[in-house]
């Protein structure tokens, strides 16, 4: 599995093979094949409700596929016992789409939780680590607030600080910049880039922020109709001739370039 290691093709760390998943009568994933290589950033795009978050949950081992396999570090995550699963997850840093902050803990304690539960650092060291991460995210002012008192974008940033707390080897960000203003999201992208350079983590990012997110991506995968329509470099993706990908690119990026015209059209109708 992790054998074909050379400079151009780092080993595969996460692999979905033929993953199918239904919720009740709704078939969400219809045979998803996807590989994530070590140290690379994979961006999953696709329309809302297509199952991007469900794919992430499969990778995390939170959802069991009806068919197919999910391998993390070469091991089928659904066949691991609890201890082995924890060993795998110790390498994860996860940002959920809704941030999933602990709502009875304030910002500081939320971010400190991984340190307190997973390391034996004393409170001073915890404080140092937490304040550093909160500083990166521009959240020093908010440390005593509770999640319910934060704005959507702040919640996302707290979630990110928590996800990056323990130097993860693989990060999963479900819509990291949704709800952030352009300035904040640009800053965040720079931050991702820097930390990725430093830590060399593997990243799986779900985002609607096309095309900005492409700058961060090594590979882009489009999910539509329950399948990965293609997984390729951002350059190839934008030039792809494949109908579904082309449609997606035109829909999202074409819109950007022709927004003036369209807006005029809209106003003209009103």
């Amino acid at each position, binding site marked *: 599995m992790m054998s074909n290691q050379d400079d151009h093709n780092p080993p595969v760390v996460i692999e979905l093979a033929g993953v199918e998943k239904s919720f009740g009568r709704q078939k969400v994933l219809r045979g998803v094949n996807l590989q994530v290589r070590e140290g690379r950033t994979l961006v999953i795009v696709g329309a809302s409700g297509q199952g991007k978050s469900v794919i992430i949950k499969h990778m995390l081992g*939170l959802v069991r596929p009806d068919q197919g396999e999910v391998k993390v570090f070469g091991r089928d995550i659904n066949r691991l016992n*609890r201890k082995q699963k924890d060993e795998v997850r*110790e390498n*994860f840093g996860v940002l959920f789409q*809704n941030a*999933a902050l602990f*709502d009875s803990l304030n910002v500081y304690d939320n971010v400190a939780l*991984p340190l307190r*539960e*997973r390391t034996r650092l004393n409170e001073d060291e915890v404080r140092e680590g937490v304040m550093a991460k909160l500083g990166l995210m521009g959240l020093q002012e908010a440390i005593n607030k509770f999640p319910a008192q934060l704005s959507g974008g702040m919640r996302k940033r707290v979630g990110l600080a928590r996800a990056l707390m323990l130097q993860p080897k693989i990060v999963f960000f479900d819509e990291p910049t949704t709800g952030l203003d352009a300035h904040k999201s640009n800053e965040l992208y720079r931050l991702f880039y820097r930390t990725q350079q430093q830590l060399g983590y593997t990243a799986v990012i779900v985002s609607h922020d096309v095309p900005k997110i492409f700058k961060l991506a090594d590979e882009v995968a489009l999910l539509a109709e329950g399948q990965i329509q293609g997984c390729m470099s951002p350059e190839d993706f934008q030039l792809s001739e494949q109908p579904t990908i082309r449609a997606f690119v035109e829909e999202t990026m074409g819109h950007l370039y022709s927004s003036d015209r369209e807006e005029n059209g809209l106003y003209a109708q009103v």
Partner: protein
Amino acid sequence: MYLLLEKIGSGTLEFLETSGRMGMFLMRALTSMFQMPFKVNPVVRQVHFIGARSAFVILFTGLFTGMVLGLQGYYTLRKFGSEGFLGSAVALSLIRELGPVLTALMVIGRAGSAICAEVGIMRNSEQIDALECMAVDPFRFLIAPKLLAGIIAMPLLTAIFDVIGILGGYLVGTGLFGINPGAYFQGMYTSVVWADVEMGLVKSLVFGLLMVWIAACKGFYLHMERSGGFGAEGVSRTTTDAVVLSSVSVLVWDYLISALLL
């Protein structure tokens, strides 16, 4: 006919599934209680929440239960001309039965419902998933402190209930009916033996465990509820279920323990 069979079948399956899940839940919660390193702080916080914050309610109900026992006990005992036994009657019924049961029912209403709602909301908003993804065992982090705190707090609250109740009976007996204070306590000394206290203790330990077990388990598996555990309504319905189920279980186990230890 066919429909009926189907209903019975699915009902049985659901029952088995739920029981299995609850059993596994208890096993995991109990084993995670003994995992090292042991953290004291969360347990203290939970004891404070379950115990200290319930103390006032317990004082209040304990006092009135004792007083009403004094009242009714006096009325009954007088018929046999044995008012002197009021002390032992009050003490025995409190220590063996009413103390543990009423304390448990009160604490279930206050803390059991809160535990279920808290855990349920954490399940609903993916906080439990988040814990798992951080490789933090939710049983160890979330459930074990509550379970241990329930087992610690319930006997303590029961003891308070008993003592206050006995005092309440004393107040009514001596104040209202002019019973000799010495006789009230002397009757108690001679009739209450260690086995009675032991029975009360066993009961309150079991009730503490039952309460947290049922409440936390219901909340933890909120997403698997057949009736749909979604949103605020799902949490509230599950919480109600948990309160009813744990109250009923307390009464059933009260009978079982009494029958076993008698």
